[in-house]
């Protein structure tokens, strides 16, 4: 096969075996790769009702056909499993260098099942796949683990691993690769920890064979020439200030979540904005494999008490740990980010859970005695201390490690958890960004911006601008954008490049650039209609699996705060998110019942059973 490698590695941790299997070309074409292959294998391997932290829950890592090919931002892989945070599926995505090295081993995907008796890591190269003891690594952080594994295997290998948070079952533990890149969301690291799998080490060789290398090269040049001419004229905000530059936009649109989502504007925003990050802490940009943008931030904080060095923070971290906690100390946010990277935790859920705890304390539903320290809005020291305590499940950290929903529920006020399907939101307020609310509610993984990100058309104006305060007409375009996102995730690309450079303005024909790349790489001769259908197939396969888990319209929800309490500040002042109205239109656009269940007719069209 071209583009794809044609092989799957099955790892049975209980038996201690690694076996190679062929990838069916028809399955590859129908599900593309990455997120698509992930849901295909998850549905085959997992009982929908499986306990996420049991041995029976499979953990799937999958690259896409464009991963490692040299297509711009073709650097990503996807982790699919059942989430211990949400009880729904995960599809957590990361870039860096690990996914390309993984694919260069000759495998498209790894399916991990069972549980090892004692800690192990997987070593994989084109000739060898074996499980090795990892007792000596258990308890070490992600940076130490990576350094030690590179020293004892191959300095040119790449490592994805969990930290102490994953070992201790923190429900939002991440899998970190290349030290700083995170498959961050929904607790994929806790699933890996429950299997006693500390790390995956990959060492590949050679290039990914392409079906039409000349065509691929010519199209690649065409796309990059246009991109480079554009950034010569107007340098990309993402390159200059990283995703942290988005703070300025969300503040001005009035959608920067503040004080546990009580409002969408933050008076201290200029202190946590990307320009401040660049001015104070940036050492250099960091880029994933084959990425012309370089949005990553290599940073260092020199001054005590928050001194440290690493990567980040991203915009989502700054919202969750900054405005949402009313913390305007960028050094503290950056330090808490470093701790999350080293311990292996999701920064969004971490920050949002601390914000929730701050509100619970303010309202008298959680005592400071129980917290073990004062916990007022804006307390930067508390942010850093509680992040550390969560990673080790020490004191109140044991409760915070359960995420904001279980924390608020434990205190008798689940309505104060700002979640959908028990997963915390990224940083765009749905009262002032209506389609974002619909995307959160219908995302298969709960609160997320990466499974269809309406901030693109509502706030960033790409591929075309729409009024963020209007709910009318948003259902159809959100559905189309989710389909496009599924293809980006399946191909192995990054949304930051693909939406602006590989998608048409008309979302009905959106994936035109992805189509060109895929056909040149794989030779699969997708038509545009076939490719769009593949995106819809992925979304519907995920939805079908969710319905078998018991999810339906009742779970496509937002907290009452966002749907009944009018926004108090900013352009959205007086508005609520009109979720119910959008949901009716959305289900129609999907061909699902009024309760959000895919109809038999729709499933048959997509070849799903």
């Amino acid at each position, binding site marked *: 096969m071209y583009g794809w490698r044609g092989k799957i590695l099955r790892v049975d941790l209980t038996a201690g075996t690694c076996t190679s299997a062929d990838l069916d070309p028809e399955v590859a074409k129908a599900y593309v790769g990455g997120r698509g292959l992930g849901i295909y294998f998850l549905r085959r391997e997992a009982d929908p009702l499986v306990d996420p932290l049991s041995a029976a829950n499979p953990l799937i890592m999958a690259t896409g056909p464009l991963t490692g090919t040299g297509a711009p931002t073709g650097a990503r892989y996807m982790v699919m499993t059942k989430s211990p945070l949400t009880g729904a599926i995960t599809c957590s995505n990361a870039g860096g260098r690990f996914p390309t090295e993984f694919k260069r081993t000759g495998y498209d995907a790894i399916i991990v099942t069972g549980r090892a008796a004692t800690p192990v890591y997987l070593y994989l190269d084109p000739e060898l796949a074996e499980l090795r003891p990892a007792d000596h690594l258990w308890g070490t952080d992600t940076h130490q683990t990576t350094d030690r594994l590179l020293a004892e295997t191959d300095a040119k290998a790449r490592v994805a691993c969990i930290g102490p948070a994953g070992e201790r079952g923190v429900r939002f533990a991440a899998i970190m690769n290349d030290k700083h890149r995170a498959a961050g969301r929904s607790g994929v690291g806790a699933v890996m920890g429950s299997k006693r799998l500390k790390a995956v080490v990959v060492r590949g060789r050679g290039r990914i064979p392409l079906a039409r290398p000349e065509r691929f090269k010519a199209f690649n040049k065409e796309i990059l020439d246009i991109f480079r001419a554009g950034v010569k004229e*107007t*340098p990309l*905000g*993402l390159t*200059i*200030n*990283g*995703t942290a*530059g*988005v703070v*300025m*936009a969300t503040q*001005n*649109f*009035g959608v920067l979540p503040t004080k546990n989502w009580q409002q969408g504007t933050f008076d201290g925003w200029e202190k946590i904005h990307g*320009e401040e990050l660049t001015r104070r802490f940036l050492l250099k940009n960091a880029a994933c494999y084959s990425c012309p943008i370089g*949005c990553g931030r290599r940073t260092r904080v020199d001054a005590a008490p928050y001194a440290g060095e690493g990567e980040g923070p*991203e*915009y*989502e971290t700054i919202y969750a740990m900054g405005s949402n906690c009313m913390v305007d100390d960028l050094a503290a946010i950056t330090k808490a980010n470093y701790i999350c990277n080293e311990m292996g935790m999701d920064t969004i859920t971490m920050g949002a859970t601390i914000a929730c705890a701050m509100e619970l304390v303010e309202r008298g539903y959680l005592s400071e005695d129980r917290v073990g320290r004062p916990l007022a809005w804006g307390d930067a020291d508390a942010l850093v201390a509680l992040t550390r305590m969560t990673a080790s499940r020490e004191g109140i950290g044991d409760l915070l490690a359960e995420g904001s929903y279980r924390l608020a529920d434990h205190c008798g006020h689940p309505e104060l958890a700002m979640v959908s399907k028990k997963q915390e939101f*990224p*940083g*765009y307020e749905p009262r002032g960004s209506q389609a974002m609310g619909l995307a959160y509610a219908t995302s298969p993984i709960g609160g997320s*911006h990466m499974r269809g*990100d309406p*901030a*693109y058309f509502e706030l*960033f*104006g*790409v591929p075309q*601008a729409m*009024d*963020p*305060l209007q709910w009318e007409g948003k259902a159809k375009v959100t559905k189309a954008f989710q389909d496009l996102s599924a293809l980006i995730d399946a191909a192995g690309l990054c949304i*930051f490049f693909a*939406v*602006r450079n590989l998608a048409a303005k008309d979302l009905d024909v959106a994936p035109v650039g992805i189509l060109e790349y895929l056909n040149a790489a794989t030779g699969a001769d997708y038509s545009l209609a076939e490719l769009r259908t593949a995106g819809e197939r992925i979304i519907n396969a995920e939805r079908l699996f969710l319905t078998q888990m018991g999810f339906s319209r009742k779970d496509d929800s937002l907290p009452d705060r966002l749907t009944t309490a009018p926004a108090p500040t*900013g*352009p*959205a002042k007086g508005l609520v998110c009109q979720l119910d109205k959008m949901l009716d239109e959305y289900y129609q656009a999907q061909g699902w019942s009024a309760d959000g269940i895919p109809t038999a007719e729709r499933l048959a069209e997509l070849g799903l059973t």
Partner: protein
Amino acid sequence: MMVTVKLFNQLQRFAPAGQGVFEERLPSGASLNDLLRQLKIPATVPRTTLVNGRRVADDAQLAANDEIVLMSPIEGG
């Protein structure tokens, strides 16, 4: 009439006195296009434009005390 203008990132270079946030006097009934001309911001410079927090067309009419935000395009998250 007076309006408040906020210029961010690469648009700041068009601030008359170097400060990104300033008050600007415009003839009564002026449009956003009139403001852009007055500030010498070429049509070719990419920007996101908000008037009182709403995205508007360049021919939109302005009113006294409006807040106009001009920022370079940004994306990510």
